[in-house]
């Protein structure tokens, strides 16, 4: 999926969820489930998620965005992508 189509579809959450389920051995993930506290992810997952978001949604994540609140759960990452995309567009 390209960055434009991901945004156009308006399915940010679905796109991130699909990536999460490809990365962790679970049948499903709750919207607010803490990905890091649960221990379900490997040590490279955090930076893999960053790379995935940058590539898929066409946004640049920098040091200022390094806040665990932005990536802690499916809902948090979705909110971050939407906020960052809106800020980039404006």
């Amino acid at each position, binding site marked *: 999926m390209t960055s434009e189509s991901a945004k156009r579809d308006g399915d940010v959450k679905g796109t991130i969820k699909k*990536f999460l*389920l*490809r*990365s*962790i*051995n*679970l*049948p499903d993930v709750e919207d607010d489930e803490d990905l890091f506290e649960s221990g379900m992810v*490997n*040590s*490279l997952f*955090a*930076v*893999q998620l*960053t*790379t*995935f978001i*940058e*590539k898929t949604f066409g946004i640049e994540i*920098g*040091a200022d965005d*390094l*806040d*665990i609140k932005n990536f802690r759960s499916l809902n948090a990452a979705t909110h971050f992508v939407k906020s960052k995309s809106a800020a980039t567009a404006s």
Partner: protein
Amino acid sequence: MRYSLTEQQQARRAEFREFVASHVEPRAADWERDQVVSRQVVQLMGERGYLGSNLPCEYGGQGWDVVTFGLLNEAFGRASSSLTSYLTVQSMVAMALLKWGTREQKSAWLPRLATGEIIASFAMTEPDTGSDLNAFKTEFKRRAGGDTLILNGNKRWITCAQVSEIFLIFGKMDNQSVACLVPRETPGFTVEPIRELMGFRAAGLAKLSFVNVELPPSNIVGKPGFGVSHVMPVGMQYGRISTACSALGIMRGCFEESVAYAARRKIGDRSLGEIGLMRRLIARMGTDVEAGNFLCYNACRAEDERAPESFETALAAKYFTSQASVRAASDAVQLRGAAGCHESSPTARYYGSAKIMEIIEGTTQVHEDLLGRMYMGQAGVLGQ
């Protein structure tokens, strides 16, 4: 690597091989014996842009793609793992800074790294922690008022540290991981060379010691809490790609040296290459080179595309080629017999260096753990 190379990539590969043939191969054995590489050659690498090959042009780099970076490392790895380590650690620090550094950090350091004016080191390993990245004893503390960091601790086995002028140090602060730039001349920071390694002898390894080293908080790269999770993996990604391709260079060297030797060496009226048991060694080496080619190209391509699988492919490439280079070097020495054991033979140098490839930038066992977790994570989507 030779899969789907563009004309430009092929031209650069030819340039790299010519450089290595002229400036590296004739002197690599001397460097290993003397345990130091030539500063003039490192300077020449900087002038050619090799030490900043994948940094953007705006910082004085070449802006080359990762496939070209892989070709560069393979060409150098064919002749000298020690010299290739300069490409490895320089890219690890530069790419971590490029991704997570502040504007001030980038403008201060990247142009100097790009030209090779200075060499950098990436310092993770500690005397008592090995591969356990969450057990750092190296500690940063904020002095009352918060305007100064105080660093205490020790690092070991730090590549190129004998000559580096800037170090990216990983440690903890308030029980959070942190990455911080530490210039060599900072008071309280000392570097003690480590010598007499079995291979990789000219890679300039050293011990680092920090005693009440004072640093500005602006030297932190990224943010506290993100040193291990975000800053380190970006550097390690390039470290793994570099090491994978360097090990592929060793494999290619073993293969080519062995084929040439087996073709000319006579046992009675037959060449070595006509003996089935010898052909078995050649077959294994050649097949491993082909497999390593594919894995390295795939890892570089994935990183060029910033594909989600890029970390996995780099792990797989490094995991395979580092082990295969040990097999190839062992077989290459075996094929040559006693002559292969002497320091005048490139196979002896390959043998010493290949094992180091299995240790640096994550041991084989660390790779097995990570790759095993990643592959198990795909259990729910198998076949999709």
